[in-house]
Protein backbone atom coordinates (compact mmCIF):
# COMPACT_ATOMS: atom_id res chain seq x y z
CA UNK A 1 0.00 0.00 0.00
CA UNK A 2 1.24 3.48 -0.87
CA UNK A 3 0.74 6.33 1.52
CA UNK A 4 -0.66 9.41 -0.18
CA UNK A 5 2.64 11.22 -0.05
CA UNK A 6 3.71 13.60 -2.79
CA UNK A 7 7.06 14.47 -1.28
CA UNK A 8 9.99 13.50 -3.51
CA UNK A 9 13.44 13.23 -1.94
CA UNK A 10 16.87 13.10 -3.55
CA UNK A 11 20.19 13.07 -1.77
CA UNK A 12 22.71 15.43 -3.35
CA UNK A 13 26.46 14.79 -3.52
CA UNK A 14 26.76 17.35 -0.71
CA UNK A 15 24.87 14.98 1.56
CA UNK A 16 21.64 16.89 2.02
CA UNK A 17 18.20 15.71 1.08
CA UNK A 18 16.48 17.83 -1.52
CA UNK A 19 12.73 17.72 -1.40
CA UNK A 20 10.31 18.61 -4.14
CA UNK A 21 6.60 18.18 -4.36
CA UNK A 22 5.34 15.94 -7.17
CA UNK A 23 2.55 17.21 -9.36
CA UNK A 24 -0.38 14.89 -10.00
CA UNK A 25 -2.58 14.41 -13.07
CA UNK A 26 -5.00 17.30 -12.55
CA UNK A 27 -2.54 20.24 -12.61
CA UNK A 28 -0.67 18.54 -15.45
CA UNK A 29 -3.82 18.14 -17.50
CA UNK A 30 -4.61 21.81 -16.89
CA UNK A 31 -1.13 22.83 -18.04
CA UNK A 32 -1.49 20.61 -21.09
CA UNK A 33 -4.84 22.14 -22.04
CA UNK A 34 -3.33 25.62 -21.83
CA UNK A 35 -0.36 24.54 -23.95
CA UNK A 36 -2.43 22.89 -26.61
CA UNK A 37 -4.70 25.94 -26.83
CA UNK A 38 -1.64 28.14 -27.34
CA UNK A 39 -0.32 25.77 -30.01
CA UNK A 40 -3.52 25.66 -32.00
CA UNK A 41 -4.06 29.39 -31.51
CA UNK A 42 -0.65 30.16 -32.97
CA UNK A 43 -1.17 27.81 -35.92
CA UNK A 44 -4.61 29.22 -36.62
CA UNK A 45 -3.38 32.82 -36.64
CA UNK A 46 -0.42 31.80 -38.79
CA UNK A 47 -2.74 30.09 -41.22
CA UNK A 48 -5.12 33.07 -41.41
CA UNK A 49 -2.23 35.44 -42.14
CA UNK A 50 -0.83 33.25 -44.90
CA UNK A 51 -4.30 32.67 -46.30
CA UNK A 52 -5.25 36.33 -46.39
CA UNK A 53 -1.97 37.37 -48.02
CA UNK A 54 -2.34 34.53 -50.52
CA UNK A 55 1.12 33.18 -49.69
CA UNK A 56 2.04 29.54 -50.08
CA UNK A 57 1.02 27.46 -47.06
CA UNK A 58 4.32 25.49 -46.99
CA UNK A 59 5.64 27.38 -43.96
CA UNK A 60 2.36 26.71 -42.11
CA UNK A 61 2.99 22.98 -42.50
CA UNK A 62 6.52 23.41 -41.21
CA UNK A 63 5.32 25.52 -38.27
CA UNK A 64 2.69 22.91 -37.46
CA UNK A 65 5.31 20.17 -37.56
CA UNK A 66 7.69 22.13 -35.32
CA UNK A 67 4.97 23.00 -32.82
CA UNK A 68 3.68 19.44 -32.71
CA UNK A 69 7.04 17.85 -31.98
CA UNK A 70 9.26 20.53 -30.50
CA UNK A 71 7.07 23.07 -28.70
CA UNK A 72 7.37 21.38 -25.27
CA UNK A 73 11.05 20.56 -25.66
CA UNK A 74 12.14 24.03 -26.71
CA UNK A 75 10.40 25.58 -23.72
CA UNK A 76 11.45 22.89 -21.26
CA UNK A 77 15.12 23.17 -22.09
CA UNK A 78 15.45 26.88 -22.82
CA UNK A 79 12.93 28.14 -20.32
CA UNK A 80 13.87 26.40 -17.07
CA UNK A 81 11.71 23.32 -17.47
CA UNK A 82 8.49 25.21 -18.06
CA UNK A 83 6.20 25.42 -21.04
CA UNK A 84 3.85 28.42 -20.87
CA UNK A 85 1.08 26.15 -19.57
CA UNK A 86 3.31 24.69 -16.85
CA UNK A 87 4.43 28.19 -15.94
CA UNK A 88 0.85 29.35 -15.42
CA UNK A 89 0.00 26.29 -13.32
CA UNK A 90 3.36 26.48 -11.50
CA UNK A 91 4.91 23.20 -12.62
CA UNK A 92 8.40 22.40 -13.77
CA UNK A 93 9.93 19.36 -15.51
CA UNK A 94 13.19 18.08 -14.03
CA UNK A 95 15.33 14.96 -14.31
CA UNK A 96 14.53 12.50 -11.56
CA UNK A 97 17.70 13.53 -9.69
CA UNK A 98 16.18 17.05 -9.62
CA UNK A 99 18.73 18.46 -12.06
CA UNK A 100 17.49 20.55 -14.99
CA UNK A 101 16.09 18.55 -17.86
CA UNK A 102 18.46 18.03 -20.80
CA UNK A 103 17.75 18.07 -24.55
CA UNK A 104 17.77 14.30 -24.82
CA UNK A 105 15.48 13.60 -21.88
CA UNK A 106 13.09 16.33 -22.90
CA UNK A 107 12.92 15.08 -26.49
CA UNK A 108 12.42 11.48 -25.36
CA UNK A 109 9.62 12.37 -22.94
CA UNK A 110 7.85 14.49 -25.51
CA UNK A 111 8.26 12.16 -28.49
CA UNK A 112 6.93 9.27 -26.46
CA UNK A 113 3.86 11.39 -25.80
CA UNK A 114 2.60 9.59 -28.93
CA UNK A 115 2.35 6.39 -26.89
CA UNK A 116 0.84 8.13 -23.88
CA UNK A 117 -1.90 9.36 -26.19
CA UNK A 118 -3.00 5.78 -26.90
CA UNK A 119 -5.61 4.36 -27.06
CA UNK A 120 -7.44 7.69 -27.10
CA UNK A 121 -6.92 11.14 -25.60
CA UNK A 122 -3.99 10.30 -23.31
CA UNK A 123 -5.92 7.60 -21.43
CA UNK A 124 -2.80 5.40 -21.46
CA UNK A 125 -0.62 8.19 -20.10
CA UNK A 126 -3.19 9.00 -17.43
CA UNK A 127 -3.40 5.38 -16.28
CA UNK A 128 0.40 5.02 -16.06
CA UNK A 129 0.55 8.30 -14.19
CA UNK A 130 -2.00 7.16 -11.63
CA UNK A 131 -0.39 3.72 -11.18
CA UNK A 132 3.05 5.22 -10.67
CA UNK A 133 4.03 6.56 -7.22
CA UNK A 134 5.87 9.47 -8.84
CA UNK A 135 3.11 10.33 -11.30
CA UNK A 136 5.24 9.42 -14.30
CA UNK A 137 3.65 8.81 -17.65
CA UNK A 138 5.41 6.47 -20.10
CA UNK A 139 7.46 9.31 -21.56
CA UNK A 140 8.65 10.28 -18.09
CA UNK A 141 9.54 6.67 -17.27
CA UNK A 142 11.73 6.33 -20.36
CA UNK A 143 13.34 9.74 -20.12
CA UNK A 144 13.84 9.62 -16.35
CA UNK A 145 11.99 12.86 -15.69
CA UNK A 146 9.42 14.02 -13.17
CA UNK A 147 7.07 16.99 -12.93
CA UNK A 148 7.17 18.92 -9.66
CA UNK A 149 5.74 22.12 -8.27
CA UNK A 150 7.86 25.21 -8.44
CA UNK A 151 8.05 27.57 -5.45
CA UNK A 152 4.73 26.75 -3.90
CA UNK A 153 3.63 29.86 -2.09
CA UNK A 154 2.47 28.90 1.36
CA UNK A 155 -0.96 29.92 2.55
CA UNK A 156 -0.91 32.35 5.43
CA UNK A 157 -0.57 30.39 8.63
CA UNK A 158 -4.08 30.10 9.95
CA UNK A 159 -4.32 27.59 12.73
CA UNK A 160 -7.25 25.19 12.72
CA UNK A 161 -10.26 26.21 14.79
CA UNK A 162 -10.02 23.72 17.66
CA UNK A 163 -9.51 24.02 21.37
CA UNK A 164 -6.01 23.58 22.72
CA UNK A 165 -5.65 20.26 24.54
CA UNK A 166 -3.12 19.72 27.30
CA UNK A 167 -1.15 16.57 26.55
CA UNK A 168 -1.47 13.79 29.10
CA UNK A 169 1.96 12.29 28.41
CA UNK A 170 5.38 13.81 27.91
CA UNK A 171 6.55 13.85 24.32
CA UNK A 172 10.10 14.11 23.01
CA UNK A 173 11.07 17.39 21.38
CA UNK A 174 11.05 15.76 17.95
CA UNK A 175 7.51 14.51 18.40
CA UNK A 176 6.35 17.91 19.60
CA UNK A 177 7.83 19.51 16.48
CA UNK A 178 6.09 16.94 14.30
CA UNK A 179 2.75 17.71 15.87
CA UNK A 180 3.31 21.47 15.61
CA UNK A 181 4.15 21.08 11.92
CA UNK A 182 1.12 18.92 11.37
CA UNK A 183 -1.01 21.63 12.94
CA UNK A 184 0.62 24.53 11.12
CA UNK A 185 0.35 22.84 7.74
CA UNK A 186 -3.23 21.62 8.19
CA UNK A 187 -4.45 23.48 5.12
CA UNK A 188 -1.92 21.73 2.89
CA UNK A 189 -3.16 18.20 3.54
CA UNK A 190 -6.16 16.64 1.94
CA UNK A 191 -8.46 15.45 4.71
CA UNK A 192 -7.74 11.83 3.68
CA UNK A 193 -4.02 12.33 4.10
CA UNK A 194 -4.47 14.15 7.41
CA UNK A 195 -6.58 11.30 8.73
CA UNK A 196 -4.15 8.75 7.40
CA UNK A 197 -1.34 10.39 9.37
CA UNK A 198 -3.41 10.92 12.49
CA UNK A 199 -4.58 7.31 12.45
CA UNK A 200 -0.99 6.09 12.69
CA UNK A 201 -1.00 7.43 16.26
CA UNK A 202 -4.18 5.60 17.17
CA UNK A 203 -2.44 3.39 19.78
CA UNK A 204 -1.54 6.59 21.66
CA UNK A 205 -4.63 8.75 21.50
CA UNK A 206 -7.15 5.99 20.88
CA UNK A 207 -9.09 8.05 18.36
CA UNK A 208 -9.82 7.64 14.68
CA UNK A 209 -10.25 9.76 11.55
CA UNK A 210 -11.75 13.26 12.15
CA UNK A 211 -11.45 13.00 15.94
CA UNK A 212 -7.82 11.93 15.72
CA UNK A 213 -6.99 14.87 13.48
CA UNK A 214 -8.75 17.33 15.78
CA UNK A 215 -6.99 15.88 18.79
CA UNK A 216 -3.57 16.35 17.17
CA UNK A 217 -4.47 19.90 16.12
CA UNK A 218 -5.47 20.62 19.71
CA UNK A 219 -2.14 19.29 20.99
CA UNK A 220 -0.28 21.33 18.38
CA UNK A 221 -2.07 24.48 19.47
CA UNK A 222 -1.16 23.80 23.05
CA UNK A 223 2.53 23.36 22.17
CA UNK A 224 2.45 26.61 20.25
CA UNK A 225 1.13 28.32 23.35
CA UNK A 226 -2.49 28.69 22.24
CA UNK A 227 -5.18 28.46 24.87
CA UNK A 228 -8.55 28.54 23.12
Amino acid at each position, binding site marked *: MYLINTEYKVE*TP*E*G*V*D*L*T*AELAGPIPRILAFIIDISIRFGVIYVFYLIFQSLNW*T*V*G*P*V*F*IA*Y*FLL*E*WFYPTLFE*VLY*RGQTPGKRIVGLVV*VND*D*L*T*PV*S*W*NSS*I*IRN*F*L*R*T*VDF*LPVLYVGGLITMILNPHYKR*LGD*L*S*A*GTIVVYK*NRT*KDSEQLPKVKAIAPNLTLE*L*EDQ*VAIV*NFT*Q*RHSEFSSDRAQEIANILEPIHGLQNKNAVNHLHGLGKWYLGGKD
Partner: protein
Amino acid sequence: MKQQAFEQKYESLWFEIENILSRKGDQLDIFAASNKTAVKEFPSLYRQLCQHLAVAKSRNYTPQLIGHLNELVLQSHHLLYQNNRYSQHKVLIFIFRTFPQAVRANGKLVLVSSLLFYLPLFFFALSCYFNPELIYSISDVFTVMEYESMYDPSNKSLGRERDSSDDLTMFGYYIFNNIGIGFRTFALGLIGGVGTVFILLFNGLHIGSVAGYLTQIGFVDTFYGFVVGHAAFELTGIVFSGAAGLKIGLALVDPGNLSRIDAMKLASKEAIIIVYGAAVMLLIAAFIEAFWSSSTAIPNSIKYTFGGSMAVLLTAYFLFVGKTRGSQ
Protein backbone atom coordinates in the same frame (compact mmCIF):
# COMPACT_ATOMS: atom_id res chain seq x y z
CA MET B 1 22.15 28.23 18.74
CA LYS B 2 18.66 29.70 18.67
CA GLN B 3 17.04 30.01 15.29
CA GLN B 4 17.08 33.79 15.30
CA ALA B 5 20.77 33.99 15.95
CA PHE B 6 21.37 31.41 13.24
CA GLU B 7 19.34 33.40 10.76
CA GLN B 8 21.13 36.63 11.59
CA LYS B 9 24.55 35.08 11.27
CA TYR B 10 24.05 33.59 7.81
CA GLU B 11 21.45 35.84 6.26
CA SER B 12 24.04 37.72 4.21
CA LEU B 13 25.33 34.48 2.68
CA TRP B 14 21.84 33.37 1.69
CA PHE B 15 21.20 36.79 0.27
CA GLU B 16 24.34 36.54 -1.85
CA ILE B 17 23.20 33.20 -3.23
CA GLU B 18 19.76 34.60 -3.98
CA ASN B 19 21.51 37.37 -5.85
CA ILE B 20 23.44 34.96 -8.02
CA LEU B 21 20.34 32.86 -8.63
CA SER B 22 18.29 35.86 -9.70
CA ARG B 23 20.68 36.68 -12.50
CA LYS B 24 19.22 36.40 -15.92
CA GLY B 25 19.26 33.12 -17.75
CA ASP B 26 19.73 29.63 -16.48
CA GLN B 27 23.45 29.52 -17.08
CA LEU B 28 26.06 31.52 -15.32
CA ASP B 29 28.06 32.70 -18.28
CA ILE B 30 31.59 31.93 -17.20
CA PHE B 31 33.01 34.21 -19.86
CA ALA B 32 31.23 37.34 -18.71
CA ALA B 33 33.60 39.51 -16.71
CA SER B 34 30.90 40.54 -14.25
CA ASN B 35 30.31 36.90 -13.35
CA LYS B 36 33.92 35.90 -12.70
CA THR B 37 33.76 36.12 -8.92
CA ALA B 38 30.32 34.56 -8.79
CA VAL B 39 31.45 31.58 -10.84
CA LYS B 40 34.47 31.11 -8.64
CA GLU B 41 32.69 31.45 -5.33
CA PHE B 42 29.42 29.79 -6.11
CA PRO B 43 30.41 26.18 -5.42
CA SER B 44 31.79 27.05 -2.00
CA LEU B 45 28.75 29.19 -1.15
CA TYR B 46 26.56 26.31 -2.21
CA ARG B 47 28.36 23.82 0.02
CA GLN B 48 27.94 26.15 2.99
CA LEU B 49 24.27 26.50 2.16
CA CYS B 50 23.90 22.73 2.12
CA GLN B 51 25.44 22.56 5.55
CA HIS B 52 23.05 25.22 6.81
CA LEU B 53 20.12 23.21 5.54
CA ALA B 54 21.40 20.07 7.25
CA VAL B 55 21.97 21.96 10.51
CA ALA B 56 18.57 23.63 10.36
CA LYS B 57 16.95 20.25 9.87
CA SER B 58 18.83 18.55 12.68
CA ARG B 59 18.05 21.42 15.08
CA ASN B 60 14.37 21.30 14.22
CA TYR B 61 14.12 24.91 13.17
CA THR B 62 10.76 25.98 11.83
CA PRO B 63 9.50 24.48 8.58
CA GLN B 64 9.40 27.97 7.05
CA LEU B 65 13.15 28.41 7.42
CA ILE B 66 13.88 24.86 6.31
CA GLY B 67 11.56 25.33 3.34
CA HIS B 68 13.32 28.52 2.35
CA LEU B 69 16.76 26.93 2.58
CA ASN B 70 15.57 23.85 0.70
CA GLU B 71 14.29 26.06 -2.09
CA LEU B 72 17.65 27.85 -2.27
CA VAL B 73 19.53 24.55 -2.33
CA LEU B 74 17.21 23.23 -5.01
CA GLN B 75 17.78 26.21 -7.28
CA SER B 76 21.52 26.25 -6.67
CA HIS B 77 21.61 22.52 -7.37
CA HIS B 78 19.96 23.26 -10.71
CA LEU B 79 22.52 25.90 -11.51
CA LEU B 80 25.49 23.78 -10.52
CA TYR B 81 24.52 20.42 -11.96
CA GLN B 82 23.06 21.39 -15.30
CA ASN B 83 24.23 19.01 -17.96
CA ASN B 84 23.71 20.91 -21.16
CA ARG B 85 27.24 20.94 -22.34
CA TYR B 86 27.52 23.12 -25.37
CA SER B 87 30.24 22.16 -27.78
CA GLN B 88 30.99 24.09 -30.90
CA HIS B 89 31.67 20.87 -32.73
CA LYS B 90 28.62 19.04 -31.53
CA VAL B 91 26.99 18.90 -34.96
CA LEU B 92 30.18 17.77 -36.68
CA ILE B 93 30.84 15.12 -34.04
CA PHE B 94 27.28 13.90 -34.50
CA ILE B 95 27.57 13.63 -38.28
CA PHE B 96 31.04 12.16 -38.47
CA ARG B 97 31.07 9.98 -35.40
CA THR B 98 28.07 9.52 -33.13
CA PHE B 99 25.38 8.86 -35.71
CA PRO B 100 27.11 6.36 -38.05
CA GLN B 101 28.57 4.61 -35.00
CA ALA B 102 25.15 4.29 -33.39
CA VAL B 103 23.75 2.84 -36.62
CA ARG B 104 26.54 0.25 -36.86
CA ALA B 105 26.27 -0.61 -33.16
CA ASN B 106 22.62 -1.44 -33.75
CA GLY B 107 23.23 -3.21 -37.04
CA LYS B 108 21.07 -6.20 -36.17
CA LEU B 109 18.06 -4.05 -35.41
CA VAL B 110 18.62 -2.10 -38.62
CA LEU B 111 18.66 -5.40 -40.47
CA VAL B 112 15.42 -6.59 -38.84
CA SER B 113 13.80 -3.23 -39.50
CA SER B 114 14.93 -3.38 -43.16
CA LEU B 115 13.47 -6.85 -43.59
CA LEU B 116 10.17 -5.82 -42.01
CA PHE B 117 9.99 -2.96 -44.48
CA TYR B 118 11.53 -4.24 -47.71
CA LEU B 119 10.19 -7.81 -47.73
CA PRO B 120 6.52 -6.76 -47.89
CA LEU B 121 7.54 -3.96 -50.26
CA PHE B 122 9.10 -6.26 -52.87
CA PHE B 123 6.57 -8.98 -52.31
CA PHE B 124 3.65 -6.67 -52.90
CA ALA B 125 5.37 -4.82 -55.76
CA LEU B 126 5.66 -8.13 -57.63
CA SER B 127 2.16 -9.22 -56.68
CA CYS B 128 0.62 -5.95 -57.84
CA TYR B 129 2.66 -6.05 -61.04
CA PHE B 130 1.28 -9.43 -61.99
CA ASN B 131 -2.15 -8.84 -60.53
CA PRO B 132 -2.86 -5.06 -60.52
CA GLU B 133 -6.22 -5.50 -58.82
CA LEU B 134 -4.43 -6.38 -55.59
CA ILE B 135 -3.76 -2.68 -55.02
CA TYR B 136 -7.40 -2.25 -54.09
CA SER B 137 -6.82 -4.36 -51.01
CA ILE B 138 -4.60 -1.54 -49.72
CA SER B 139 -6.01 1.64 -51.25
CA ASP B 140 -9.51 2.58 -52.39
CA VAL B 141 -10.47 3.49 -55.96
CA PHE B 142 -10.09 7.24 -55.51
CA THR B 143 -6.64 6.99 -53.97
CA VAL B 144 -5.51 4.81 -56.85
CA MET B 145 -6.87 7.37 -59.32
CA GLU B 146 -4.90 10.01 -57.44
CA TYR B 147 -1.71 8.01 -57.83
CA GLU B 148 -2.37 7.65 -61.53
CA SER B 149 -2.83 11.38 -61.96
CA MET B 150 0.27 12.13 -59.86
CA TYR B 151 2.52 10.25 -62.23
CA ASP B 152 0.69 10.94 -65.46
CA PRO B 153 3.41 11.66 -68.07
CA SER B 154 1.48 14.75 -69.21
CA ASN B 155 2.03 16.47 -65.83
CA LYS B 156 4.20 19.57 -65.49
CA SER B 157 5.43 18.53 -62.07
CA LEU B 158 5.46 14.99 -60.78
CA GLY B 159 4.32 13.45 -57.54
CA ARG B 160 1.43 15.82 -56.91
CA GLU B 161 -2.08 16.06 -58.15
CA ARG B 162 -2.50 17.99 -61.41
CA ASP B 163 0.03 20.72 -60.55
CA SER B 164 -2.13 21.85 -57.67
CA SER B 165 0.61 22.98 -55.27
CA ASP B 166 3.94 24.76 -55.48
CA ASP B 167 7.33 23.37 -54.42
CA LEU B 168 7.45 25.14 -51.06
CA THR B 169 4.04 23.85 -50.01
CA MET B 170 5.08 20.32 -50.87
CA PHE B 171 8.35 20.79 -48.96
CA GLY B 172 6.37 21.80 -45.88
CA TYR B 173 3.96 18.93 -46.36
CA TYR B 174 6.74 16.35 -46.77
CA ILE B 175 8.43 17.59 -43.59
CA PHE B 176 5.18 17.49 -41.66
CA ASN B 177 4.14 14.09 -42.99
CA ASN B 178 7.35 12.11 -43.49
CA ILE B 179 9.35 13.21 -40.46
CA GLY B 180 6.15 12.87 -38.43
CA ILE B 181 5.88 9.25 -39.60
CA GLY B 182 9.53 8.73 -38.68
CA PHE B 183 8.98 10.03 -35.14
CA ARG B 184 5.83 7.97 -34.69
CA THR B 185 7.58 4.85 -35.97
CA PHE B 186 10.08 5.35 -33.17
CA ALA B 187 7.64 6.29 -30.41
CA LEU B 188 5.17 3.48 -31.03
CA GLY B 189 8.00 1.01 -30.43
CA LEU B 190 7.39 1.57 -26.74
CA ILE B 191 4.44 -0.83 -26.83
CA GLY B 192 6.75 -3.81 -27.11
CA GLY B 193 7.74 -2.89 -30.66
CA VAL B 194 4.27 -3.72 -31.96
CA GLY B 195 3.50 -0.23 -33.24
CA THR B 196 6.82 0.01 -35.05
CA VAL B 197 6.41 -3.38 -36.72
CA PHE B 198 2.91 -2.40 -37.86
CA ILE B 199 4.04 0.91 -39.39
CA LEU B 200 6.99 -0.72 -41.14
CA LEU B 201 4.90 -3.54 -42.60
CA PHE B 202 2.08 -1.26 -43.65
CA ASN B 203 4.33 1.32 -45.32
CA GLY B 204 6.23 -1.46 -47.06
CA LEU B 205 3.01 -2.97 -48.43
CA HIS B 206 1.68 0.43 -49.42
CA ILE B 207 4.77 1.65 -51.28
CA GLY B 208 5.20 -1.76 -52.89
CA SER B 209 1.63 -1.83 -54.15
CA VAL B 210 1.91 1.62 -55.73
CA ALA B 211 5.24 0.77 -57.39
CA GLY B 212 3.95 -2.54 -58.79
CA TYR B 213 0.71 -1.03 -60.01
CA LEU B 214 2.24 2.00 -61.72
CA THR B 215 4.90 -0.17 -63.37
CA GLN B 216 2.17 -2.41 -64.73
CA ILE B 217 0.22 0.46 -66.30
CA GLY B 218 3.42 1.81 -67.85
CA PHE B 219 4.18 5.00 -65.86
CA VAL B 220 7.73 3.73 -65.46
CA ASP B 221 9.67 6.85 -66.42
CA THR B 222 7.59 9.28 -64.41
CA PHE B 223 7.30 7.15 -61.29
CA TYR B 224 10.87 5.92 -60.99
CA GLY B 225 12.24 9.24 -62.21
CA PHE B 226 10.36 10.87 -59.38
CA VAL B 227 11.26 8.53 -56.54
CA VAL B 228 14.84 7.66 -57.41
CA GLY B 229 16.30 10.97 -56.18
CA HIS B 230 15.02 10.86 -52.61
CA ALA B 231 14.40 7.14 -52.23
CA ALA B 232 17.75 6.41 -50.57
CA PHE B 233 17.31 9.08 -47.90
CA GLU B 234 13.62 8.55 -47.30
CA LEU B 235 13.46 4.75 -47.18
CA THR B 236 16.62 4.51 -45.08
CA GLY B 237 15.30 7.23 -42.77
CA ILE B 238 12.12 5.24 -42.13
CA VAL B 239 14.08 2.00 -41.65
CA PHE B 240 16.33 3.71 -39.08
CA SER B 241 13.34 5.16 -37.23
CA GLY B 242 12.03 1.61 -37.20
CA ALA B 243 15.30 0.29 -35.78
CA ALA B 244 15.14 2.91 -33.01
CA GLY B 245 11.54 1.91 -32.23
CA LEU B 246 12.45 -1.78 -32.16
CA LYS B 247 15.27 -0.95 -29.76
CA ILE B 248 13.00 0.50 -27.08
CA GLY B 249 10.43 -2.20 -27.75
CA LEU B 250 13.04 -4.89 -27.29
CA ALA B 251 14.29 -3.31 -24.06
CA LEU B 252 10.79 -3.69 -22.68
CA VAL B 253 10.29 -7.26 -23.86
CA ASP B 254 13.77 -8.49 -23.00
CA PRO B 255 15.41 -6.18 -20.44
CA GLY B 256 18.23 -8.61 -19.63
CA ASN B 257 19.82 -8.03 -16.25
CA LEU B 258 18.25 -4.60 -15.81
CA SER B 259 14.85 -3.67 -14.50
CA ARG B 260 12.40 -2.90 -17.29
CA ILE B 261 12.40 0.81 -16.51
CA ASP B 262 16.20 1.04 -16.46
CA ALA B 263 16.46 -0.95 -19.68
CA MET B 264 13.92 1.39 -21.25
CA LYS B 265 15.83 4.48 -20.13
CA LEU B 266 19.10 3.15 -21.47
CA ALA B 267 17.60 2.04 -24.77
CA SER B 268 15.81 5.33 -25.40
CA LYS B 269 19.00 7.27 -24.77
CA GLU B 270 20.78 5.32 -27.50
CA ALA B 271 17.77 5.12 -29.79
CA ILE B 272 17.18 8.86 -29.78
CA ILE B 273 20.56 9.38 -31.50
CA ILE B 274 19.37 7.26 -34.40
CA VAL B 275 16.07 9.16 -34.40
CA TYR B 276 17.90 12.49 -34.74
CA GLY B 277 19.88 11.12 -37.66
CA ALA B 278 16.80 9.65 -39.29
CA ALA B 279 15.04 13.01 -38.96
CA VAL B 280 17.91 14.75 -40.73
CA MET B 281 17.80 12.16 -43.52
CA LEU B 282 14.05 12.58 -43.91
CA LEU B 283 14.55 16.35 -44.01
CA ILE B 284 17.08 15.98 -46.83
CA ALA B 285 14.67 13.61 -48.56
CA ALA B 286 11.84 16.15 -48.24
CA PHE B 287 14.05 18.82 -49.79
CA ILE B 288 15.07 16.63 -52.73
CA GLU B 289 11.52 15.40 -53.22
CA ALA B 290 10.01 18.88 -53.30
CA PHE B 291 12.57 20.76 -55.36
CA TRP B 292 14.35 18.15 -57.48
CA SER B 293 12.32 14.99 -57.92
CA SER B 294 9.15 16.80 -58.99
CA SER B 295 10.83 18.64 -61.83
CA THR B 296 10.04 17.47 -65.36
CA ALA B 297 12.78 19.69 -66.82
CA ILE B 298 15.56 17.46 -65.55
CA PRO B 299 16.12 14.48 -67.86
CA ASN B 300 15.68 11.06 -66.29
CA SER B 301 19.25 10.00 -67.04
CA ILE B 302 20.50 12.73 -64.70
CA LYS B 303 17.90 11.81 -62.08
CA TYR B 304 18.97 8.15 -62.13
CA THR B 305 22.63 9.09 -61.91
CA PHE B 306 21.91 11.44 -59.00
CA GLY B 307 19.77 8.90 -57.16
CA GLY B 308 22.34 6.16 -57.68
CA SER B 309 25.21 8.27 -56.41
CA MET B 310 23.18 9.25 -53.34
CA ALA B 311 22.58 5.59 -52.55
CA VAL B 312 26.28 4.78 -52.98
CA LEU B 313 27.32 7.78 -50.88
CA LEU B 314 24.93 6.87 -48.08
CA THR B 315 26.10 3.25 -48.04
CA ALA B 316 29.72 4.34 -47.88
CA TYR B 317 28.88 6.84 -45.16
CA PHE B 318 27.28 4.25 -42.91
CA LEU B 319 29.93 1.64 -43.59
CA PHE B 320 33.04 3.72 -43.13
CA VAL B 321 32.52 7.11 -41.48
CA GLY B 322 33.43 7.29 -37.80
CA LYS B 323 35.42 4.07 -37.71
CA THR B 324 38.33 4.33 -35.33
CA ARG B 325 41.29 2.10 -34.84
CA GLY B 326 41.75 0.80 -31.34
CA SER B 327 40.16 2.63 -28.45
CA GLN B 328 39.26 6.28 -28.57
